[in-house]
């Protein structure tokens, strides 16, 4: 069984940073579908990272 030192707070920070970047991309696309629809997919995947990592960070030591 593999054990490793994992920095979940840093992961959470990166997830937030990436989300902010993608939202900014949508903001400046002015409705370009090729940007908005792909960003929508990225945001859905980011949500899964939030569910897996960000949601639990506050409960960890």
């Amino acid at each position, binding site marked *: 069984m593999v054990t490793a030192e994992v920095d979940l707070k840093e992961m959470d920070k990166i997830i937030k940073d990436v989300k902010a970047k993608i939202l900014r991309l949508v903001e400046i696309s002015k409705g370009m579908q090729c940007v908005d629809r792909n960003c929508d997919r990225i945001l859905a*995947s980011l949500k899964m990272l939030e*569910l897996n990592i960000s949601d*639990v960070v506050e409960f960890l030591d």
Partner: protein
Amino acid sequence: MQVKGIDRYWNPVLETLPREKLQALQFKKFKRVVEWGYQNSKLYRRLYDEAGFHPQDLKTFKDISKVPTLQKEDYRLAQAKEPYPYGDSLCVPLQRVTEYHQTSGTTGQPVYQPDTWQDWEWWSECWSYILWAQGFRNTDRVFIPFGYNVFVAYWAGHYACEKVGCEVVPGGILNTEERVLKMKELRATALMATPTYVLSMAETCRNKLKLDPGKDLNIQRILCAGEPGASVPATKKRMEEAWNAKVFDHVGATEIGGWSFECSAQKGLHANEAFFLVELVDIDTGEPIEEPGKIGKIVITAFDREAQPCIRFDSKDVSMWGEPCECGRTFRLLSGGIHGRVDHITKVKGVLFSPVAVEEVVRSMPQLGDEYELIVSKKGDTDSLTLKVELSPDNRDTQENVLQELSRQLRLKTNLAYNIEFHPFGSLPRYEIKAKRFKDLRQGH
């Protein structure tokens, strides 16, 4: 922090989270979805307002039991309104819905299930927990022997396989023989199917193609869904022996999601408690059941669905908590998987009766084939149970001996007597997806 089992678990943090922290996470997520449902769905707002409940009433974990439960009929009534076809149950603008699925409609009008792309990612995420726990890896070639159609299960399995990194072969359109030959040709390593179809494919292999599925094919693991068979020890044993493969159970539902899975320890079904709140309640009183070994009904909340949330949904599935699993997960185990449905557990001749008990008996007798049919009817004022079975082609015992042994086992396991009918092998109905082996013909059932 030190994280153990990075290779063993899909999410080693959530799956091994100490119980008190898991409960704190659950409460945070529960409050979030209740607020979401109340603010965005007329269905939940009406349900809660009529019950005098408000999301702000949720102060502690114990307050969860104050939240009204949702019945399938509530979805149906809400969906009769605009916007078509989801009506008052929809929580997002219709334009955000990208996926349509529906329930099978076995208990009435199907429930329509809208999902956004985020919901769809969530479906495959939940299924990834299942697949990883059962050993599916990027070295697997997974064969799915169904046309997926409007039903969600194998779509979700397919997308989750992709997420986990498996190669997926969609085996719709083909007939059973063609599917078996395709699996053989491609050297598929894994398979997803209902227990009924897993056994039926093995029968086709042996009797029509003259192949031994355990030797001539390369299937190493089978994920079952749709029926409780993979948690019925005798049925699981039949499938594992026929295919020379590990067989794993999983339970999910269109309205809920893929909420539970058997891990490689095969000791029961883990509830995915990071994504779902799984409550076991007394069938009659609705009181929570926390202790292992006591039968109850499952009420479920999916924490993270946005288009059509599922909050304290009365699944009508019956199970019981088990002891902690040796796999290291802190997600609780449901012992023996799903034991049946509230609407199938019925009184026959005054005795509480579950059809799953009959499956266990029939499948534990090697003299019998895989198929059977069970009918409850009324003769005058008396309930009557008829069990139709087939003798296996390999059986060398006399029918009279098999009859005596079967009657004895049934009496022992269910406390009931049966009219047992032997039918020629291959004459009882065969099913591809969910079997309908239990029929209650009494009025009002």
